[in-house]
């Protein structure tokens, strides 16, 4: 407790970096203590960047990351359940930050996706024909895995954070309180620890967000819905043969299903279904669809026992994800709708870390410097909701689906020409660009004109035999005695 008392003493100072700061405001200084609750991507990114920035300005901080999971363990115990796609934009941002994802972590580098529809399917490659999307396992691998050939993505990030000097506390935080305005953290059987800043990075798949609700900070956890992920073992050769280095996405007319993908990863194929309350019957109808069956070896059926889970995903952001000395990053704060959640964890975590080091840790600091990042994601999600409504209509309408297929196929056959539909679909499915940018591109007259034309052509082609049949039937009827 001596350590805590020292840390609390004199942790107020006037920031050297923000001259609008009022005297007596809350800020970190040498030997300030920071608690990061949760060692998923958001917690690790926050810690990594906080310590990186602090080192740049020669500030010494003590950071404890609390994480109960051992990411070296296979199965659900070591896994933060997700599709495991590291988006094209995040791969690039991390590379610019000096974080290169090694092939000991990336199980499959992805260079294209295949869009499956009832009529047909089409392959869309990255503009530069380059592998810029990473498929990873968040833990050491699925339950029942025979041999661990790759490292956990979350474990890799946590090691990066520890490498910057953070201290990893293996344990679940089961109580949080405030003492004289400062956060106090308690694990089962541990002694209470006081901090100058508390960072919540607990995601939405545990009861931890409730610990914060009771503090009366105005924080309300995000609203979530149930999704589905499963892992099927095939062995590297079969995965290569059936999925190659493409992510396979499906535009099927199945109610409540917003997004469905098959992702190749080492020896496994990951199935990921997002939408509203994905349940057993919906998973079954998906797996029974002929478009899906085509992606698996003939005669394959779902095994008796396989690793699967139903994690929660956000569809509405948290309310008030900051307070004096407390900030919420990643899923438990604000994230992107259905796509690039890890990318959003990086953006929110880094914005919070930059705020804490260069501005301060009061609610006002976070409101001014951290909230704009969250607000931008929220605003973009509203446009994303609109895009998903349109996608749902397209899923229902066979003419629209054929129009898309025709437009994309023609673009892919002519690599020199404009790839308007291909890039729109690429960015929607991979989450590589903000929804706003994608939406603006769909309003371009050339996009709309081309799409409309392709719908008309495919519709005429589709109904022409029908007209012909009807006309022939009429003739026969007229000729009949």
């Amino acid at each position, binding site marked *: 407790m001596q350590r805590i008392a020292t840390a609390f003493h004199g942790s107020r100072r006037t920031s050297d970096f923000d001259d609008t700061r009022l005297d007596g405001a809350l800020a970190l200084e040498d030997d300030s203590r920071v608690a990061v609750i949760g060692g998923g991507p958001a917690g690790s990114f926050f810690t990594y960047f906080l310590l990186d920035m602090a080192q740049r300005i020669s500030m010494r901080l003590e950071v404890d990351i609390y994480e109960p999971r051992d990411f070296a363990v296979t199965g659900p115990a070591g896994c933060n359940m997700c599709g495991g796609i590291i988006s094209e934009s995040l791969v690039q*941002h991390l590379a610019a930050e000096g974080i290169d994802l090694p092939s000991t972590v990336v199980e499959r580098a992805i260079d294209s996706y295949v869009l499956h529809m009832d009529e047909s399917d089409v392959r869309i490659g990255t503009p530069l024909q380059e592998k810029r999307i990473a498929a990873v396992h968040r833990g050491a691998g699925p339950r029942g895995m025979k041999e661990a050939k790759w490292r956990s993505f979350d474990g890799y990030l946590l090691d990066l954070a520890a490498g910057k000097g953070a201290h990893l506390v293996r344990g679940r935080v089961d109580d949080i309180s405030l003492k004289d305005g400062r956060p106090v953290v308690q694990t089962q059987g541990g002694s209470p620890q006081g901090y100058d800043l508390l960072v919540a990075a607990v995601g939405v798949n545990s009861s931890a967000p409730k610990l914060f609700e009771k503090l009366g900070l105005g924080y309300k956890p995000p609203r979530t819905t149930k999704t589905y992920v499963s892992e099927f073992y095939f062995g590297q050769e079969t995965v290569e043969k059936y999925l190659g280095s493409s992510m396979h996405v499906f535009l099927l007319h199945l109610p409540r299903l917003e997004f469905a993908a098959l992702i190749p990863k080492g020896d496994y194929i990951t199935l990921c279904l997002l939408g509203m309350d994905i349940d057993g019957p919906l998973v079954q109808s998906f797996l029974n669809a002929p478009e899906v069956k085509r992606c698996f070896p003939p005669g394959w059926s779902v095994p008796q026992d396989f690793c699967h889970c139903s994690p929660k995903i956000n569809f509405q952001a948290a309310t008030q994800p900051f307070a004096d000395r407390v900030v919420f990053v990643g899923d438990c704060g604000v994230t992107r709708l259905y796509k690039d959640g890890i990318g959003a964890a990086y953006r929110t975590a880094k914005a919070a870390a930059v705020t804490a080091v260069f501005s301060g840790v009061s609610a006002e600091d976070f409101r001014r410097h951290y909230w704009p990042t969250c607000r931008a994601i929220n605003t973009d999600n509203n446009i994303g909701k609109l895009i998903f409504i349109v996608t749902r209509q397209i899923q229902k309408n066979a003419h629209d689906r054929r129009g898309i297929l025709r437009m994309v196929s023609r673009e892919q056959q002519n690599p020199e020409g404009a790839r308007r539909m291909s890039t729109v679909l690429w960015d929607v499915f991979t989450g590589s660009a903000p929804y706003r940018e994608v939406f603006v591109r769909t309003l371009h007259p050339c996009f709309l004109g081309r799409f409309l034309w392709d719908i008309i052509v495919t519709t005429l082609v589709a109904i022409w035999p029908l007209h012909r049949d009807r006309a022939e039937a009429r003739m026969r009827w007229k000729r009949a005695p």
Partner: protein
Amino acid sequence: MDMGGLGKVYRDGEIVVRQGEMGDCMFVIQAGQLEVLREEGARELRLTVLGKGDIFGEMALFDGGVRSATVRALGEARALTLDKRTFLRRVHEDPSLAFRILQTMSHRIRQLNGELVRLKSEQTEMAAPRG
């Protein structure tokens, strides 16, 4: 086969960027080595050899100009492209993303300064009257 290797593979001797061409992206080396060459007429001058984690092509991102040197694979190498638009959009949101690029650039200026001093002192030595 390295199924998890991100970026694009360049064969030995393959040119990644060519001096004088317009550039709208930069690169981060993921594996192997690349040599940076300055072409002066028919002569090729090797400026440096870059390895894993090194960045190149960043100047074109900021000054919008042409590539100042040719970069060629030395043996098989793999590099990841960073698009100008993706990068600058993010720098606009988070200027601290540019720290590492600035670090690389200042490191290069230091190297150039060292090189300049060496050349100047060689020149002075050559010009000095021998006794």
